[in-house]
């Protein structure tokens, strides 16, 4: 056989077919590129390329004061904005050894839990839509609007509030705050069984997600997969239980743990978390002290003493860590953000190899990635 014919025969027997999923793609929910190598419809391996939304937040923070940093941390994982703000505020307060009033602790935890429910509602809408059930998008967002109305009444903005600042809160909450939350809980408890009727019990959904993308507990710990994705594999990583902060020591709730670790149980873990968040909210609203204090006494210029400080917080997607190295000035010397989505992304190759492209969409949807959190 001639040289040319040999090469053509070889290429025909072992074709390497690489396509790009992204950076613009409706299912990646953000600017992320997957370089997928295919054999027919089956994925052989997958390389994620991130960095399209890299804004240099860590470098910017080295020239900003601590209250100014709050506005940047909002934009990391924008669906858990309050929890990001809380992480930096708690780090600064622990460094300065300031104690915030009890009422502020309760309001911070209430906002975190409301944000968690809103984030999971948006995740559910997008996940259902990715798998083909377009109606899920409308139902989830309709119910999320109730939470965004509560936020807009108190803070003026729907998504990025920059409300939790070092020392306490930016200003006091609206008088209708408590009533808005109790009304929402009554409303959403009736709507959540609808969600289960839509997807959880649906035969097609179960066939598409059960037994898919199984993550073992050792892999979850080794790769640092936290949040509901890790807890569905049995990795007990809830920071609200390990190192409780704000008002979490005062409430009673259970950590949602499963052992199967496949796509279906990552889904069920998030649905159960929504129910658990509503239980926590009821307890917090009940116990919240009255009054109108919203901040502790702070100096006008915040300077952290020399040293290093680390704070861990549970966002909707996993463990967020804030590491501040200070040399005594009013700007940090080094600020490192350990974001949950950065660690969660790189398990995609191991989970999706050997499955079809449609399964890749289901797996990346169940990991719930928000891309600006990966790139910072």
């Amino acid at each position: 056989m001639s040289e040319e014919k040999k090469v053509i025969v070889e290429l025909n027997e072992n074709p390497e077919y690489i396509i790009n999923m992204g950076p613009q793609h409706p299912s990646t929910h953000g600017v992320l590129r997957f370089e997928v190598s295919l054999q027919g419809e089956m994925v052989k391996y997958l390389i994620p390329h991130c960095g399209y939304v890299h804004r240099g937040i860590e470098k910017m923070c080295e020239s900003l004061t601590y209250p100014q940093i709050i506005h940047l941390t909002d934009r990391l994982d924008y669906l858990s904005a309050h929890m990001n703000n809380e992480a930096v505020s708690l780090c600064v307060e622990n460094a300065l050894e300031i104690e915030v009033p009890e009422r502020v602790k309760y309001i911070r935890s209430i906002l975190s839990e409301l944000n968690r429910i809103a984030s999971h509602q948006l995740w559910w809408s997008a996940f259902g839509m990715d798998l083909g059930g377009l109606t899920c998008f409308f139902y989830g967002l309709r119910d999320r609007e109730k939470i965004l109305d509560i936020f807009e009444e108190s803070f003026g903005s729907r998504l990025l509030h920059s409300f939790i600042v070092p020392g306490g809160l930016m200003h006091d909450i609206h008088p209708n705050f408590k009533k808005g939350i109790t009304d929402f809980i009554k409303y959403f408890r009736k709507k959540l069984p609808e969600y289960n009727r839509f997807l959880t019990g649906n035969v097609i959904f179960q066939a598409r997600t059960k037994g898919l993308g199984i993550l073992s507990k050792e892999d979850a710990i080794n790769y640092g997969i936290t949040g509901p994705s890790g807890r569905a594999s049995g990795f007990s990583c809830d920071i609200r239980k390990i190192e409780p902060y704000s008002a979490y020591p005062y409430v009673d709730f259970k950590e949602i743990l499963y052992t199967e670790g496949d796509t279906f149980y990552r889904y069920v873990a998030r649905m159960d978390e929504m129910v658990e968040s509503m239980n926590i909210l009821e307890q917090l609203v009940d116990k919240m002290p009255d009054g109108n204090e919203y901040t502790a006494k702070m100096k006008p210029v915040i300077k952290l003493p020399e040293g290093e400080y680390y704070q861990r917080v549970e966002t909707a997607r996993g463990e967020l860590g804030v590491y501040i190295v200070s040399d005594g000035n009013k700007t940090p010397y080094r600020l490192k953000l350990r974001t949950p989505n950065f660690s969660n992304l790189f398990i995609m190759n191991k989970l999706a190899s050997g499955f079809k492209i449609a399964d890749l969409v289901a797996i990346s949807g169940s990991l719930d990635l928000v891309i600006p959190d990966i790139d910072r």
Partner: protein
Amino acid sequence: MEQEQLKEKIIALLPEAEFNVNKQYLDINVPSDKMHAFVKLLKESDDLKLDYLFCLSGVDWKTHFTIVYHLTSTFFGHSLVLKVKTTGRENPEVASVADIYATAEFHEREVYDLMGIKFSDHPDMRRLFLDETFIEGFPLRKDYKDEINIIER
């Protein structure tokens, strides 16, 4: 395990460890040639079992660099901070722990991308966020200059 007990066990495993002042965690400086073996011991020893690396960062101290590892144990609940110094500013290099903790593979790529610290025996040492054609340097270093995009205060 309490901090005092932890401190004794660390000294028994590695006598050259120096301890820093840190209110939150037990903070250890480790010489860079003994670092890889020590970290492997920390993960595999039965009474320490530090199996979860939750943060890997690089800090630029102008005369040298430091890599900071935050480790914790999912079995016992204790945590540690390890610090490794590089010998200088030119061609800084540290051993990679990507074979011990799988998450370190990507955190180390990020540290290389933004600070220029190479990790030896890393399976895939190349830039992560920035383009391969970015030759202007390493942005997170303190001496990085960009006339157009960065305003010095």
